[in-house]
């Protein structure tokens, strides 16, 4: 039975999924560019702007659906969660932009010790994997997949604190490398957090339970 609400939900879903794809692309370009030492700020900026305007559209659509149709149960959980997920995707875009901007403004990993670029690349890869989990589990409504985000989330957290500790103890790097890399590592950790929020929302939509995967 096709309800009036269903059309609205389809449109809302399409917008959110589109945001996911754009956000994933922005992060891939930005993190890759930082690690390889390329300036990607213009492309990433464009993508980030798209995400900002889509966030506004998603919000308006969601509020409109709530006001008009007063959804309940799973419909309500979907609309509520999609609003929050849209914000998480917007954050993806924002951090992607931040990473590429830092590289442009302060420089990348040029003056760093050997272990640092590899470390950052590993962490970046893990975070991108989490981003992919968050988007795929959302698109396929796969709660099993969503729950697998716990492990990399813990690993990324450990890597974050590991990096900070190491940097403090072994103060060999140049200040440009230090500032640049610490900022980026911080952004990566936040991206991982948002990926986890999205995965938690996927479980909430499906089961109505609010769980913590961090």
């Amino acid at each position, binding site marked *: 039975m096709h*309800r009036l*609400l269903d059309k609205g939900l389809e449109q809302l879903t399409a917008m959110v999924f589109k945001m996911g794809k754009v956000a994933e692309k922005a992060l891939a370009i930005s993190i890759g560019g930082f690690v390889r030492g390329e300036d990607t700020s213009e492309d990433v900026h464009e993508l980030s702007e798209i995400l900002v305007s889509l966030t506004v559209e998603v919000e308006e659509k969601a509020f409109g659906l709530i006001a008009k149709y*007063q959804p*309940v*149960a799973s*419909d309500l959980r979907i609309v509520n969660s999609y609003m929050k997920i849209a914000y998480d995707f917007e954050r993806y875009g924002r951090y992607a932009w931040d990473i590429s901007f830092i590289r442009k403004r302060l420089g990348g990993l040029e003056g760093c010790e050997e272990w640092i670029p590899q470390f950052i690349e590993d962490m970046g890869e893990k975070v991108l994997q989490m981003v992919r989990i968050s988007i795929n589990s959302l698109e396929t409504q796969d709660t099993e997949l969503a729950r697998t985000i716990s492990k990399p989330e813990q690993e990324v957290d450990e890597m974050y604190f590991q990096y900070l500790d190491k940097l403090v103890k072994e103060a060999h790097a140049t200040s440009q490398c230090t500032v640049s890399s610490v900022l980026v590592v911080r952004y990566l950790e936040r991206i991982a957090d948002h990926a986890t929020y999205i995965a938690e929302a996927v479980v909430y939509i499906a089961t109505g*339970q609010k769980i913590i995967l961090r």
Partner: protein
Amino acid sequence: MTTLKMTVNLEEARPDAKMQSIVLNAWFGSKQALKDINLTVKANAVTAIIGPSGCGKSTFIRCLNRMHELVPNARMSGQVLLDGKNIYSSETDPVQIRRRVGMVFQKPNPFPTMSIFDNVAAGLKLTGTKKGQNIDEIVKKSLQQATLWDEVKDDLKKPGTSISGGQQQRLCIARAIALQPEVILMDEPCSALDPIATAKIEELIVQLKNDYTVVIVTHNMQQAARVSDFTAFMYLGQLVEFGDTTSMFENPKSELTEKYITGKFG
């Protein structure tokens, strides 16, 4: 179709329950309208009964005040407890039960030959419970509780049918309240009213639960969400799910309930 079966220890009457139905079945002739309903109505709370047309919700509440048996060929089995005592026991007078369990109907039905004042006083006068009481005071208090006093206080002698539909419904509520029942049953009280009148009655219901126990039948899910503390979902004469309203509307346990309240059927 998944159904949620609820089993209740037959000996046990819940202490905080104002009313409780135990294995309640009801028939119209050979057609069974209610199957094994076990439901608890908590005191000083609003319990909503939702479900598609024909699911037995009106039949159920009519069993709570013994109005079901007034229909020719109607019968029931099982127990209905009011404060722990079965209202269908052979020593119980149905008329006394109806004075303790009042009812408001879907279509407002003030007595056509009586004035507004007489309508509210009708319960007292016709049941002989007026001895030694100040009827004027009771009528005023009832109309105030029903939030109708200010609108009709200068027109008490006007016929009960001369006011608007929403006001007539509040008049019927005042009439029921005048007898100081313990429970108020409402059978889709707002379905014949416009949105503004509906909103007034919903506000009234929320206030009423301070002094009374309310059971409301509604087919409007959002109304149940707005006014009730507990919700029961019935389908084809059976109780499918019962729980506190908030969790039922955010996350129903039964797939059937979810399908119904999201409008995917019925």
